[in-house]
């Protein structure tokens, strides 16, 4: 009994690390640029396909392709902010919501056209390896993904708190007008925020590849998790998003264990609706 619970919690925490990368990206964009990126999941998908093709064509290990997917998606993020999102920033919600939503639809369906709906997998030497500790089963690929995800989250936190650019981003998140008065160039800060957020999504994609299949719709699972985590962990709060993501992973995993294999997502939605019902400002508690 105890071991099944512990195993479910560990499975949840491991996948929760990936959710964290996605939701930290969503919450960073929301905090700094004040828009919700509906396409965040599609960038995870792109990260996965980058890793898949590098592994397939050149035999590059998916974990090494992190060094390709992250910079590529950083540049994509900067371009998207500069050429698309910048044009719809304003008091009106509609264009902001539906621009990134259209982007999500576009990327998903382009992937469907180019790569078909087939599932793509990469088999690495460590894909089937696992540690057995005290009766618990810990797959190596998932453990690596979790550790790298936590390291990247930590690096982002350090970046936001120690560098000038990071501080400028936090300032812009707190009060855009005052930050501009202090000489912070908002578009530059927004470009970096988008770049970092997309690079994190790309990292999530590469880290997933050794143990998860790539297909055009793969991002939707992750982005739904991320939205729920971001709402639960107080909008725009990086640490909140991280903790909520790990909780979501555990909740999903316990749902699969005790409600049924197809019920992970149902448990997550139930959590979201409960959060909205009883703590609509998120676990952190600051009102929007």
């Amino acid at each position, binding site marked *: 009994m105890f071991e099944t619970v512990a195993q479910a919690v560990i499975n949840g925490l491991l996948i929760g690390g990936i959710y964290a990368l996605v939701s930290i990206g969503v919450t960073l964009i929301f905090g700094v640029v004040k828009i919700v990126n509906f396409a965040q999941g599609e960038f995870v998908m792109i990260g996965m396909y980058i890793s898949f093709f590098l592994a397939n064509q050149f035999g590059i290990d998916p974990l090494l392709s992190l060094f390709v997917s992250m910079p590529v998606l950083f540049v994509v993020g900067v371009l998207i902010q500069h050429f698309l999102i910048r044009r719809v920033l304003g008091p009106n919600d509609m264009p902001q919501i539906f621009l990134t939503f259209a982007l999500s*639809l576009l990327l998903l369906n382009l992937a469907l*056209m180019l790569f078909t709906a087939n599932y793509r997998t990469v088999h690495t030497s460590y894909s089937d390896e696992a540690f057995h500790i005290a009766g618990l089963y810990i797959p190596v690929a998932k453990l690596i993904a979790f550790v790298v995800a936590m390291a990247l989250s930590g690096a982002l936190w350090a970046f936001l708190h120690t560098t000038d650019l990071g501080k400028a981003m936090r300032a812009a998140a707190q009060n855009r007008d005052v930050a501009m008065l202090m000489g912070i160039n908002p578009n530059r800060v927004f470009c970096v925020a988008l770049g970092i957020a997309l690079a994190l999504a790309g990292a999530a994609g590469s880290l997933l590849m050794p143990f998860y299949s790539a297909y055009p719709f793969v991002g939707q699972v992750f982005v739904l998790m991320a939205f729920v985590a971001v709402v639960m962990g107080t909008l725009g709060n990086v640490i909140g998003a991280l903790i909520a993501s790990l909780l979501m992973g555990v909740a999903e995993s316990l749902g699969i264990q005790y409600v049924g294999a*197809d019920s992970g*997502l149902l448990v997550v939605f139930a959590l979201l609706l409960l959060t909205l019902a009883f703590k609509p400002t998120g676990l952190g508690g600051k009102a929007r």
Partner: protein
Amino acid sequence: MTTRSLQGRSLALLAIGIAVLIVLPLAVRSSFAIDIFIRILLFSFIGTAWNLMGGYAKQLSLGHAAYFGLGAYTSTILQIDFGISPWIGMIAGGGVAMLASLPIGWLCFRLRGPYFTIATIATAQALMLIFLKFRDLAWGAEGTTIPNLGNAPLMMQFESKAAYYYVVLGLLALGLAITNLIERSWMGYYLVAIGEDEDAAEAIGVNAPKIKRDIYLISAFLTALAGTFYIQYIYFIDPPTAFSFNISIEAALVSIVGGIGTLWGPVIGTILLETTSTLLQSWLGSSIGGVQLTVYSLILMAVILWRPTGLMGMIGEVRQRFFIRKPARA
């Protein structure tokens, strides 16, 4: 003077339009073409229902599939398990959707802007998962076919496609009539005020939560009617069909492309999108997945970046140019 003649002109246009729409299935015999007309009318109607809340009050829902599905399932369960006509089931489905909109609205309206949108997605997806998971509720993931009774107008089953055409034409007329009534009433102005700036609207005494709840009730009711009709038309129901995310997407898309918060926007948007999609399918064949939504998303992006007022806005600009020049000449 100008406004009066304008009104006469639009009334005449409307009468001609109605006449053409009524004669259309008699003139066009091809069932392929009538099928496309039915799709256009159906999505115009769904878009009209969405537009009441999403367009006028700017509560941008991407979860209207919830009500589409509830309407579809209510009438189907009543029909198959209790032998009740879908005509009654349709109204009952509308009622169920209205009931469901109360708790869903209570939850989702706690959030604003994009997070409202996400909450609506989650509720629709959760409903689909519930219908997939609990087999006792309604056939689970397998779904069920609707028993074919041949020509049974009282059970909303017809042999000719033209009859379905008239049913959905009637629904669209209902949706447009309701929109027209609301647009001209105090409620329409309150909705637009909420859409412009909710806090400011509340500050001048608009009871925003109540107005939003009421318009959500109406919007949910109408969407549910579309669900019943669609399932009767395709003779099959399962959770991914009834609660399809594509329904939620297209409801919003046709309204935005056509012109958000305008009476005719959803209709014009649907005509453009469905025609494009049909042409694409006849050129490329339907073998390549994703073509339709790729094109839809490109159109949506173009509208957002260059014409946020949609096609209605463009028509308005053209008309204005035309009418500003005219009095100057006279």
